[in-house]
């Protein structure tokens, strides 16, 4: 039987017909950056637990950092443009995308949204230029899914605050110049939570690295230890109070993650298709076996659905806006299917599937973190369940 050229995922989904010329160019530019600058090093960076800080100036020059924000040296992309950029970055590595998500959505966005004019002028242009790296400190050793239980405190003291506590699992904290830290003021409850910009060099601020991660190894993760750190009042974000400040940031980041995860899924899919067409077992390529085809067909179906859903909500986000519940739907679905696709792809590669030489195991391991951070899969189920039934099941 004649063997035909395989249909590409792009041609199957045919999303191009729904994209503007600029959106396609942005995708092409980031795709190329990843292919030429990141992928040749991806396995080594993962193996050695290294983040390529040398690429930061290039990423900044491309306008990716805080790329969805307007003004202050940011690119002002629409949600589809930004989503496509993140997707291409995550086709490289979830760690690379995590760096960009944290810088843009979790560190720059709160300053842009909740900060004073002076704070924006002071930090945002340099953050867009990659000269100041930021991180986001919400999670604590004993408060993850339930951030209202945080223990970190800010004690009002004269014209400033004194911060005490420990933040855990903080992406980029080891390389950050500043941290947006959320803390309860005095002995208040969750409604007293405030965001503070804590700068490296402030006395009592430390960011030990978390070692031994088997996931997101190319992304530096650390703690933020706050030992009586004196933070001047002008470093407090003035325009938000309560947990909704931090949750607003997460809504931004989660939507980007929903796009990004599909990039990792696509990388796994492409790897599998080319492998299965080459690998021969029982007298023929495994791509010609029905069980393998079923897996490949299901991967393509899920990527197509996730992509079209992401596009729909991105257009909606830019026109009338979307709700956190809709963002939960996108994050839960797309990250969940990406992880399933990566695991399934890992199996199709057989023994080779456990080698770093192929991108699949790296994506599979990375996606375990993506599944857990920014609201675990279960947390998003509960958000959806609450909205759909009216009953809070947390």
């Amino acid at each position: 039987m004649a063997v035909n050229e395989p249909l590409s995922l792009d041609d199957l989904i045919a999303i191009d017909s729904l994209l503007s010329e600029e959106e396609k160019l942005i995708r092409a530019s980031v795709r190329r950056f990843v292919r030429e600058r990141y992928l040749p090093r991806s396995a080594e960076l993962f193996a050695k637990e290294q983040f390529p800080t040398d690429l930061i100036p290039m990423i900044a020059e491309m306008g990716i950092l805080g790329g969805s924000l307007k003004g202050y040296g940011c690119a002002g992309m629409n949600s589809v443009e930004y989503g496509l950029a993140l997707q291409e970055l995550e086709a490289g590595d979830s760690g690379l995308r995590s760096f960009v998500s944290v810088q843009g959505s979790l560190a720059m966005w709160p300053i842009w949204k909740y900060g004073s004019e002076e704070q924006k002028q002071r930090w945002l242009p340099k953050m867009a230029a990659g000269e100041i790296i930021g991180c986001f400190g919400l999670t604590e050793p004993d408060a993850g899914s339930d951030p209202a239980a945080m223990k970190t405190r800010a004690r009002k003291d004269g014209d400033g605050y004194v911060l005490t506590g420990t933040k855990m699992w903080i992406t980029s904290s080891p390389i950050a110049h500043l941290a947006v830290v959320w803390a309860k003021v005095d002995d208040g409850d969750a409604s007293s939570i405030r965001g503070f910009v804590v700068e490296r060099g402030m006395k009592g601020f430390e960011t030990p690295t978390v070692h031994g991660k088997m996931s997101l190894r190319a992304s530096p993760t650390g703690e933020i230890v706050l030992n009586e750190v004196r933070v001047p009042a002008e470093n407090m974000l003035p325009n938000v109070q309560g947990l909704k400040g931090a949750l607003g940031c997460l809504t931004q980041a989660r939507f980007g993650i929903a796009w990004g995860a599909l990039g990792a899924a696509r990388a796994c899919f492409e790897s599998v298709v080319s492998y299965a067409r080459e690998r021969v077992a029982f007298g023929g390529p495994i791509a010609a076996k029905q069980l393998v085809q079923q897996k490949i067909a299901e991967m393509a179906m899920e990527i197509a659905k996730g992509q079209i859903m992401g596009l729909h909500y991105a257009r909606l986000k830019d026109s009338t806006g979307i709700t956190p519940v809709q963002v939960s739907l996108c994050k839960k679905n797309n990250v969940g299917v990406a992880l399933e696709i990566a695991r399934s792809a890992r199996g199709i590669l057989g023994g080779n599937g456990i080698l770093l030489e192929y991108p699949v195991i790296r994506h599979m391991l990375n996606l375990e973190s993506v599944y857990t951070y920014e609201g675990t899969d279960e947390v998003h189920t509960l958000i959806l369940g609450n909205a759909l039934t009216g009953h809070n099941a947390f």
Partner: protein
Amino acid sequence: MKILVPLKRVADPDNANKVKIPASGATIETTGLEWKPNPFDEYALEAALRLTEDGKAPKVRAGEVVVVTFGPKETETTLRAALATGADRAIRVDAADDKLDGHLVARALKALVEREKPDLVLMGKQAVDGDSNQVGQILAEQLDYPMATFAATMKEEAGGLLVGREVDGGVITLRVKFPAVVTVDLRIVAPTSVYSMKTAPAFKYNDGVRFAALPAIMAAKKKPLAEVKLADLAADQGLRVTYHGFQAPPARKAGIKVKDVTDLVNRLKNEAKAL
């Protein structure tokens, strides 16, 4: 300095197996092909941008780069990408892909050069589809301009360029006076290959061509893109090259595994006749 950079789109060289030839062998099927800018043309654009900026971060433009392509409306994508990468202005010469050959393109470019009066025409040494390697040379001859081909380095000096060309056993350095035609090789995008008179001598570029910045992609929509009719540039549109037929390369035979070195040497000697 004003530089004209001709760009050609080519079928994605990484997806060469998508190129289809119908049974008649009369043509190449172009539907469904993914188009990319010819890599050597991208190197020429990168070199042109380096020659027209100050080499500082953030880079300030100090000159003009005009890109031109020949082809139907959809080739404007190639030009938009070049504008997004940093070119200042674009021209599309409206033409059908299969009604062009190197000589006609060179004749039309000559007319365009006479209109635009650039100091330099900077182009790829060849396009990776037909690999003809001739447009630059024909153009220089037609214009009676000095020419340097396969440039690996360029250094601007007053009124011209010092061009380094890699040849067997060394480097030849040519001094060309403006206006000139220069075709580039891949090493032109190495970190220290191109210096304008404004670039600090210690400045190093990133290796390779730059990536279009996302704000620049959005701004590119506002940069001028003009359309010119081929007939306005070339009264005679006759072709010097006619194609008589197309054939796919023969499918490669599967390789074999040899037992050991003796077997290998034996087969190289007796079967492949390579020794």
